């Protein structure tokens, strides 16, 4: 099922009413949201740098048929 989302200062957020039944939202200010976005971009960029310079070989025909 598609989430109901809102767009807020450059990122998507679930509509808060969806978070009132089972799991509740915690106290979190915009700086904390910005920090998560910063950490995420840093981590993904770093991960990309680890892998982007090489190409993983696929299976050989023999391996596939074995």
């Amino acid at each position: 099922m598609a989430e109901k989302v809102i767009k807020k200062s450059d990122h998507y957020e679930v509509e808060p009413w969806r978070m009132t039944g089972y799991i509740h939202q915690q106290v979190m200010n915009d700086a904390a949201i910005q920090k998560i976005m910063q950490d995420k971009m840093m981590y993904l960029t770093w991960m990309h740098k680890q892998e982007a310079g090489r190409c993983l070989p696929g299976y050989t025909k023999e391996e596939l048929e074995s």
Partner: protein
Amino acid sequence: MEILSYKKFYEDPVKKGEKVDDELSKDCYNVFACRHKFCREWCPDYVEEGNESYTSYGYHTGLLALSRGNGDLSEMKNAYIHCLECGQCELKCPNTMFGGDFYRVTTTTVDLVRKMRRDLHAQGIDYDGFEEVQKTIDDFKAHDAGPDEDLTSWAAGLDLPFEGETMMFVDYYNAFQTREVPIAAAKILKAAGVKFGILKHPHITTGELYETDEDAWVDAAKKNVEALKEAGAKTVIIVNPHEYSYFIKEYPRYVGELPFDVVFITDYVNDLIKAGTIKFVKPYNKKVTFHDPCSLNKLCGNYKAPREIIAALPGTHAEIEDPVLQWKYCCGNGVSSAFRKALPDVSYKIGVRRLKHANDVGAEVLLVACPHCKDMFAETKTKSGINIEPVHILEVVAYCMGIEV
């Protein structure tokens, strides 16, 4: 910049023989259900000990088990002390990294660990080695109750006023154990022509107290904020990154929005360098690398200023790593020094790993931006014989400015 991110339901204590709060149990299930264990692979304690009970996953799962009636609270006696409160797990956890900003629900391991140490202590269940930690708390409390002159004796001869729009906050660790750090900070600011003051009586801030007696710690926090306000502070410069994390992440929880800006010393000094107010007159011809303090890099997302300062040092050859790679490391002290006191052997192994890594990148000096890192690495260097010198970045800035510290 205040970073607020916490769960109200952590305030309900977990008590022996009583049902665990439903919210807490569901929250622990969120971590249990993930099982990616990204938290585990880079947890400095897990890397040394290989025990999954001592990871974010383990801490949450253990509590979940307790909430389902499996086990007893006293079995957790020695579990939560294994956390350095470095924050790696909570930022790398998919619950935070890939869903936290969307759902406004994150993994908050550091807070959970502090809460559980507190809850266990309140019921007389203290980890082995707690006496050492209690001794530190008592010493620091004695400083707080002692004469004002002792608290500012590190600043003797510096002629600093006890008021000002810009105030430098110096914690007890810096004031008593690593005086060279606040002295370097004060001399740098003075040489750059910054008018600033210090508190006549700063109150206790240590993390060991925070996770043992929250009320006493919060009481001191309120007094610090009040005293800084009364001194006329519009900007407060913090010299210890542990305290910086408390000021921007914890204080606003208890005292509301702070009536002044909080700036970490490396950011302040970096701005002065960029503005040309700090001028270097001497080269520092060394091969250096930099250790990001967990409290700055992981807990506060602050990593740029030390890198820019190092890049500006004349003559210095720097091999500086990506801050993400540094999420893996801790000096071994922990954001609350309880870890180092209760688990000196694990602490030492974590320190050795970091020093060896600094050696591997070919550095002769390991620059740090935290007094606890400096002390921890100095001890590890002596014990291990690994030939790399831990030096505080402010001492090098002062050196290049031609200042004697």
